[in-house]
């Protein structure tokens, strides 16, 4: 019982992070049918920028409350990631807007290699640990534990998702995004500046990536220049699992992937009689992805979703 509940909590927390990153993939795909493979690296940059700020403040102003320090880290990481996302769109994707689909895919991979190396030059190859500024509260519910950080991640993710849904469904920008996703040409006939809408989509996705990067490094207590690769791959898988291009799908896919991983890691030892350990958790995630794609190639909520962004 307590193991089950514990894995449920861990899975939801991990899944929240995947979902936030997956939203970035799915929003961009929904609007221009491009897989922005550099998105994972944007997440990594967000984490490292925030960690630098948090580390400097924790050393320089030790009296400052941890939550304020964290907010300062986010306050820099978000604009840096937004600027990075806009730059990537402008330099690597926009010139290829009408090129064959493979071309922007290749520049995407190129950008992600550039960003990894840039991060390695700035922050080095070593793991950077999260400074101990965060509240360390730990609560017990029905035999399982949940920490302050986990609660914060869950609450923040729910708020961000609700905000995003409202934005896409109710605001003028959201309507323009959906119109652009359905037909760029007709949207422009309505007076929509399509390039600006696409840039806004990258900006929003990158802001979400910054938040997710800070969350994941706070959760694991670590960050490094290569963390964006696996995180990006899993979040992309989550987006495909839910049905790429579909906002609700990215949220569902992210949470599911987190839960699958968490339960997989929790029970894999028992299931295989100790033959495989919890470090095989990634196998579960990708196994499920393959299975879903075999039976439902458009993902769980794919293709027929009407609230694509």
């Amino acid at each position, binding site marked *: 019982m307590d193991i089950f509940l514990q894995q449920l909590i861990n899975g939801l927390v991990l899944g929240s992070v995947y979902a936030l990153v997956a939203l970035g993939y799915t929003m961009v795909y929904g609007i221009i049918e491009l897989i922005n493979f550099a998105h994972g690296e944007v997440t990594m940059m967000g984490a490292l920028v925030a960690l630098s700020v948090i580390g400097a403040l924790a050393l320089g102003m030790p009296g400052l409350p941890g939550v304020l320090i964290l907010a300062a880290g986010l306050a820099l990481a978000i604009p840096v990631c937004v600027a990075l996302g806009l730059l990537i769109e402008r330099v690597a994707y926009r010139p290829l807007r009408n090129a064959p689909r493979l071309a922007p895919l290749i520049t995407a991979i190129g950008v992600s290699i550039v960003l990894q190396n840039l991060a390695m030059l700035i922050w080095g190859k070593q793991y950077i640990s999260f400074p101990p500024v965060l509240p360390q509260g730990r609560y017990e519910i029905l035999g399982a534990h949940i920490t302050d950080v986990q609660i914060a991640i869950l609450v923040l993710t729910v708020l961000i998702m609700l905000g995003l849904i409202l934005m896409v469904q109710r605001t003028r920008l959201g309507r323009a995004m*959906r119109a652009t996703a*359905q037909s760029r040409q007709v*949207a422009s*006939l*309505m*007076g929509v500046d399509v390039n600006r809408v696409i840039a806004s989509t990258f900006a929003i996705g990158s802001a979400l990536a910054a938040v997710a990067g800070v969350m994941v490094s706070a959760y694991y207590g670590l960050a490094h220049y290569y963390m964006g690769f696996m995180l990006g791959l899993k979040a992309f898988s989550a987006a495909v699992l839910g049905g790429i291009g579909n906002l609700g799908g990215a949220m569902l896919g992210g949470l599911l992937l987190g839960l699958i991983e968490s339960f997989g890691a929790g029970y894999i030892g028992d299931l295989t009689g100790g033959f495989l350990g919890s470090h095989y958790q990634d196998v579960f995630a990708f196994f499920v992805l393959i299975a879903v794609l075999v039976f439902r190639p458009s993902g769980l909520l794919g293709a027929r979703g009407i609230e694509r962004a």
Partner: protein
Amino acid sequence: MSALLAVKNLSVAYGGIRAVRELDLEVAQGEMVCLIGANGAGKTSTLKAISGLIASHGGSVHFDGKSITRLQAHEIARKGLALVPEGRGVFPRMSVAENLMMGAYVRTDRMAVSRDLDHVHALLPRLAERQGQMAGLLSGGEQQMLALGRAMMARPRLLLLDEPSMGLAPLMVKAVFDIIRHIAAEGVAVLLIEQNAHLALKTCVRGYVLEHGALTLAGPAGTLAADPAVRQAYLGEGA
């Protein structure tokens, strides 16, 4: 007085193949003009070039005395020129109400927008009945109505229509053209492209005939409809 829309020497080319050659065309304030021609004559290319969806190869387009030749589609739309594209171009995964709101996307005068919405609903009661329905689920005729209503929501000074009768049953064609006449009667200039030359010439005041990318005839609709060459080529009369 200068024309509302003045197209001079317009050329459009796709990869070296010229689709439109040195075309001159004018539409006056509040005038109804049609451009007729066979399939592939370059009618759609002309409209797309005017509205900025494709780049022109040469020539100029002036709207209300100002050049819009090099502007992008969204900039041209904001000047008061609305194109209803071939195949309606409704947003299939948006509700009817949201499609209409997209028509008023650039407008900030909320009061006037909601008055215009009432006006569109009064003129096109079907749209009022189906407000919440996804546009993709409407019939072809209803989609054409929606596309027209959406264009009206932009309060354009010039309406460009690309084959509004295409794929519609005769009764629906009549209904759609009644609405087009109604819009024109409110003072909106109309440039209509049609394969159905009979209907176009009956509806409009003036017309142009386009063949293989070049204009061959121009004049009052009545004169064109009486022209033996037009009658033979476009009005289905034997020689």
